[in-house]
């Protein structure tokens, strides 16, 4: 299944991109995506990462489905 992965702020700076489309095995979770990107960009491991799927906060072990939009970002700092 295909999902779109978004990065913002610090995570966008660390991975060097703002979004990417990727194909995952069915049953994959945000944790699988995180595993991939922390392997290719080890600097991500020193950050507290939050995950949103389709604009809602989710836990990293939630199940993804075709067409989901997965956002990976650090602790927010607006205000």
């Amino acid at each position, binding site marked *: 299944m295909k999902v779109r992965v*978004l990065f*913002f*702020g*610090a995570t966008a*700076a660390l991975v060097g991109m703002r979004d990417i489309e990727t194909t995952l095995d069915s049953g994959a979770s945000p944790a699988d995506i995180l595993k991939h990107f922390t392997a290719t960009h080890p600097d991500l491991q020193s*950050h*507290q990462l939050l995950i*949103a799927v389709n*604009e*809602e*906060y989710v836990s990293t072990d939630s199940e993804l489905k075709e067409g989901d939009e997965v*956002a990976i*970002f*650090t*602790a*927010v*700092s*607006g*205000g």
Partner: protein
Amino acid sequence: MDFVELTTEPIDISSVARRVVPPECGATVTLDGYVRKFTKGRETLHLFYEAYEPMALKEMEKLIEQAKRDFEIANVGIVHRLGKLEIGETSVVISVAAPHRRAAFAACEWLIRELKRTVPIWKKEVYADGEVWIESDPENK
């Protein structure tokens, strides 16, 4: 009427504060957050705010819904600025109108705390010798 907005234009505090006023209300409390010059002694030249825009708007709307359940308030307006901001410019305005001012103070203070904790907006501080994406609000810890 409640409203949430993200804007790259300067925020006018009055227009936010006055848009939440219904005729039967007595007080509006407004929080105006702005760019500090010094953080831990380091001089910030300017700031840059970025948002996951559709989610940020949804999260701000959720905060307003919850505030209206938990406090006796009438209307809430939240406007957050994005893009490059100079020192002293307003980054966020939260206005809460209520029949009695106590609820307006309590709700406004709760809203800014929760906004800093949950709304997907990030700020980058730019210094003479580099820049840093800020990842938490020390006041919330």
